[in-house]
Every structure is written in structure tokens, then in C-alpha cells.
């Protein structure tokens, strides 16, 4: 597998893994460039492009005006004509400014042109609540993207996955969104120094278990793992699946697990209503109905904008305690 050709492996924070991934992409692909707001001089407001301007110059690490529609359009046009753009949309919430370029251009051009156009474009963006950034800087809007045929969508939970998925996205000849998580920037984990790619569309079983499956992604992987430890005391042996890729979705891994455990919950930070949980629950009942001992539970944010006040935000964002409570309720405990 391309994933594991490790040379030296170090502990790196998520933010440094992103930096290393983009440096790798710029080194390996002479046609690649990074463009976005404050990506060059400032190295991004999250710090993950620091040093790249000095290393690759302002032709390949490009500061743009605050013009999201223009920035994504730049990426679409450049990708269609021979370059391999890595486009930065600082916060996922700002997709509103550029949704036509995403939904009607980037996602559809190859199909509408009868396959004659190819768009090797990677979009890096930031999702997630938990930092008191209020309603317009805290959303998890991945389903906006997953609902659009023509886009791949990945959401790494660890530094290892962040590096491998970004490199994988940049090697892909089609548009891939990499939605990062702002609460995870300082999270540390092992990252091989070498270049490696995680195939897009492969989930990972991050904890094996026998009688309950939690399907999750992004930061909720860590909350689900904590919940699994707590549930072990109740005799619930939880298998945790990190989807990593939402589009394409690795239904096989999910179904195989549910057939084994016969009970499942889907956990995500996004609003529960019309979230990924609905899709995954439907897939499970379509493919493993006869195996199910209970309905598929869904844990997600309540149906409201993200509130500012820490007192409200804490009760808004899903966490291990809520996952445990939800699973216990499902199991009638």
C-alpha cells in the first residue's frame, strides 16, 4: 500500500503535517501552486503555509485579494488549462462567496464537456466549532459539497491523515476538497517524513470492536474513541470507523462492520438534520437491514446556527458524553 512506505516517523502537530504536505506537493509537482488570502506573506492565518513563500517564490505561493469567487475561478480556469492549483478558502463558511464557481463550474465542467476537460484542483478549507468564533466562522458544511456530483470530499482527523490526504488530493486529476479542523491544529501524532498518499475513498477502522459500530470523521473521531472507552465499562465493545473520505464514501467498510456488530451510530459535528448521518443510516439499512438489532442512531449538532457564548457553544457541539448518552439510550440502558 502506498500509505506505509515510512522512512523516519516523527510526532508532528496537525498544522505542521499540513505544511509538510503542501511543501511536498509543490516540490513534486512543478505545475502546482497555492493561492488564497494571506497564504504567502502571512503563511495563512492558521500558520500552515509558513515558509513556503520563501522556498517557492511568489509565482507559486500567491496572495490574493479578498475575492473568493475570483480565487476559486482562478483555480478552475488554471486547472482546466494545465496547472494544478491548491486553492485556500480560509474558513469553509466563506464558500457562500464562491458557491457558483464550486457547484456549477468546478463540479460540472468535466461532465458537461463530455469528459474533455480535466480539473486537477485541490481546495483546502477549515471547518469546525469550539473556538467561540460564532455563527459565520464555525460551521461544518461538508454536506453542501457531498451533495454535488463532481466533487471529492475528505476530512482528516489526524496529522498522518492530513498529510496523506492532501498529497492524495493533489495527485488526483479531479477536484478534491480537504476540509480541515481548527480545533485539531495543535493535535500531535506520528507523521512519516517521506511523501505518502492516502487513497481517497478508503475509511479506516481506528478501534476494533465486536458489538457496536460508530461511524464518524474529523474531530469527532477523537470524541468517539473517548466514548468507546467509557462504553467498554458497560460491556459495549465499540468499533470506531474514521471515514476520512465522505465522497466517495467507503460503504463497504461500514457495512462489513455493521454486519459484525449489528448496531451502529453515526457521529458528526455538523447539524444533525440532513447531515451525513442521514445518508449513512440509509446506506446501512439498504445494505444490512437484516443484520440490524436496533435503529441507527445519529449524533450531531442541534438545528441552530452556532452560538457565540461559550456557555451555549459547549452545549451545542457534540462530545464524548453526548455520544455515550445517545448510545446508552439506543441500547435501552
Amino acid at each position: 500500500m502506498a500509505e506505509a512506505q515510512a522512512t523516519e516517523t516523527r510526532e508532528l502537530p496537525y498544522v505542521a503535517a499540513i505544511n509538510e504536505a503542501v511543501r511536498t506537493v509543490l516540490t513534486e509537482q512543478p505545475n502546482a501552486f497555492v493561492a488564497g488570502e494571506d497564504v504567502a506573506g502571512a503563511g495563512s492565518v492558521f500558520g500552515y503555509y509558513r515558509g513556503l513563500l520563501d522556498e517557492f517564490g511568489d509565482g507559486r505561493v500567491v496572495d490574493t485579494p479578498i475575492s473568493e469567487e475570483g480565487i476559486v475561478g482562478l483555480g478552475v480556469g488554471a486547472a482546466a488549462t494545465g496547472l494544478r492549483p491548491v486553492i485556500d478558502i480560509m474558513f469553509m463558511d466563506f464558500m457562500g462567496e464562491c458557491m457558483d464557481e464550486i457547484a456549477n463550474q468546478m463540479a460540472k465542467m468535466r461532465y458537461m464537456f463530455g469528459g474533455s476537460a480535466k480539473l486537477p484542483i485541490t481546495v483546502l478549507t477549515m471547518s469546525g466549532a469550539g473556538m467561540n468564533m460564532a455563527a459565520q466562522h464555525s460551521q461544518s458544511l461538508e454536506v453542501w459539497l457531498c451533495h454535488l456530483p463532481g466533487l471529492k470530499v475528505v476530512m482528516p482527523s489526524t496529522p498522518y491523515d492530513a498529510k496523506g490526504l492532501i498529497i492524495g488530493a493533489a495527485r488526483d486529476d479531479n477536484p478534491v476538497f480537504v476540509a480541515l479542523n481548527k480545533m485539531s491544529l495543535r493535535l500531535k501524532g506520528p507523521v512519516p517524513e517521506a511523501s505518502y498518499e492516502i487513497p481517497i475513498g478508503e475509511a479506516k477502522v481506528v478501534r476494533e470492536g465486536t458489538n457496536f459500530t460508530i461511524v464518524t470523521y474529523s474531530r469527532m473521531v477523537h470524541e468517539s474513541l473517548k466514548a468507546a472507552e467509557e462504553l467498554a465499562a458497560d460491556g459495549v465493545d465499540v468499533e470506531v470507523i474514521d471515514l476520512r473520505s465522505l465522497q466517495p464514501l467507503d460503504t463497504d467498510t461500514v457495512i462489513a462492520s455493521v454486519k459484525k456488530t449489528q448496531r451502529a451510530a453515526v457521529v458528526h459535528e455538523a447539524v444533525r438534520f440532513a447531515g451525513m448521518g442521514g445518508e449513512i443510516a440509509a446506506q446501512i439499512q439498504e445494505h444490512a437491514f437484516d443484520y440490524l438489532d436496533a435503529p441507527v442512531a445519529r449524533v450531531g449538532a442541534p438545528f441552530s446556527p452556532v452560538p457565540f457564548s461559550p456557555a451555549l457553544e459547549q452545549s451545542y457541539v457534540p462530545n464524548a458524553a453526548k455520544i455515550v448518552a445517545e448510545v446508552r439510550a439506543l441500547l435501552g440502558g
Partner: protein
Amino acid sequence: MTAQPTDEVLLDMHRRMVRIRNFEQEAGKLAEDGKIPGALHLYVGQEAVAAGVMTHLSDQDWITSTHRGHGHLIAKGGEFGPMFAELFGRATGYCKGKGGSMHISNMDLGMLGANGIVGAGPPIAVGAAFSCKTQGEGHVAATFFGDGASNEGSFHEAANMASLYKLPMLFVCENNGYGEYTPQANHQAIVDVADRAPGYGMPGVVVDGMDAVAVYEAAGEALRRARAGEGPTLLECKTYRFFDHVGVRGMGLSYRTDEELAEWQKRDPITLFEARLAELEILDADSAQAVHDEVLAGVRAGIEFAEASPLPDPSVLLDDVYA
């Protein structure tokens, strides 16, 4: 040209600027001490713009603001207590703790919100100006936005529509030379944002944004036009923010020099204004200090009110969710 400001108006503008300055300085300290959650974009250095424009507006006139919105709300009549309470995320805040610094608003004062989305204000102000025109009571809408925001498509669409419909509207570009950490020269190929106005069929006016009287006079003429049905104006105020993009010291990036900051600080809008008031024998140094002291006491009382206020109860989370 509009009439020169009366002594009363000058003192009013002075107080508005001092109110903003003291609020923002104390908010900055609280943010640096980790006592205010989230991100604060402070207005220190730009006070003359808010004061010079807002002195012309009543509660029935509307404004839209930006992520750097406290100064606009204070100049529009915002009170310290519910403002600090909002920044602290308390139930007694203007938005009941649900909005915070980036969404602070007050409909009763005609303030349609700070905004977390750069460039979101101008189109909303077009709608407010459309209401003003339809309602025919002589009210106007003013939209504040930065040099950086003038590169968003939303600004351009709003400028075209406001001019097309001859709306009673004022576009106020606060050009502080930077969009976040990017200097203006690296984000647009022009020096004066006001140059964009003729392309939309409206006048573009450049003023010294550190000079409250210059802002007041230019805004007065633009608002006279707006109220007379002659359409919008783009007023560009050249200014500078004395603090970092976020907070006071921010992320510590070296994107501008200490010398440049010091140069602009020599033209501190409040110092300049106080010198002028002293020269005109309207306000001497002691009386100016008295205004600062009184305002600072009000700011401290506002902070105490906020700190003593309850956090919102989790049961209110879904209040105002209707779909």
C-alpha cells in the same frame, strides 16, 4: 458644501471618539488577558470615521458594519454595558450572547450588525436604503467597509444597484491600508478606492480619515445628496488601525513596520481633534481630560455590569430557530 460643524457638534464628535477609544482599549486588555472569548477586531485609530459620519445620523437611519464593528455601534449610540455583556457572551448582551463581537447589533439604534463575512454589508445596506426610499421619510443607509472588502464582488454589485436606483445611501470605505496582513498595494492595483465610484455612476470622494471634521463635512455633503434623491456617494477615508488585525498585538507577524505605525500615531485622530478644539477655545486640556475620565468610568461600569451578568441558560439555545 455643508455648513461647518457647530461647537455643539464638535463636542459631540469628540465624545463619540473618546467613547470608542476607551471602550476598545479596555476590550483589548480584556482580550489579551483571555477574559473575552473569540476574536476581537478593534477600531482604535479609526475613530474619526465613525464619529464624523454617525454624527449626521439618527436612530432611524441604518448602518451596516464589519468585523471591526464596535466603533460603529458606539458612535451610533451603543451602550457600554450590553456591549461588553455581548463580548463576554452574557445573557444581557445586545444579542443575548448569541452573536459576540463579530455579530454585535442593535436594531433600535439602526445598526444592522457587525459582520463576520467581509463584503456582506454593502448589499444589505442597499436593501435598507431601498426601504428608506420606499418609506419616503428621508432616512438613509450607510455602509462601512474596508479597503480589503472593496475587492469582493458583493461591493461592486451593491455599488451598481445603489447608483442605478438612486438610493439614499452612503458607501464609507475605511481604507486603513491593509486587509488582514496584506498591504493595499498587494491586493489592488489602485491607490484610491474612490476611483471605483465613477464606474458605477456615483461620485467618489477621498478624505483624511484621521480628521473628524473633514469626514464630517464630506459625509454631510454626501448625505445631503442622498436625502435629496441624487443617489449614493462613495466616501473613502484614509486611516490606519493602531492595533493588530485581531486583538492588540495579534499574531506578531511583521507585515508593517513600527516606523509606519509611529508615523500614523503622530496623527492620532483624537489628539488632532483635541488640539483643534483647544485652538478654537471650545475645549481646553483639562476639560478634555474630564471627558476621558468620565467615559473611562462608564467603560469600567460597563465591564462590571457584564461580569456580573449571567451566562445564557442552555435552554435558550433553540430560541429564535424557526425552521
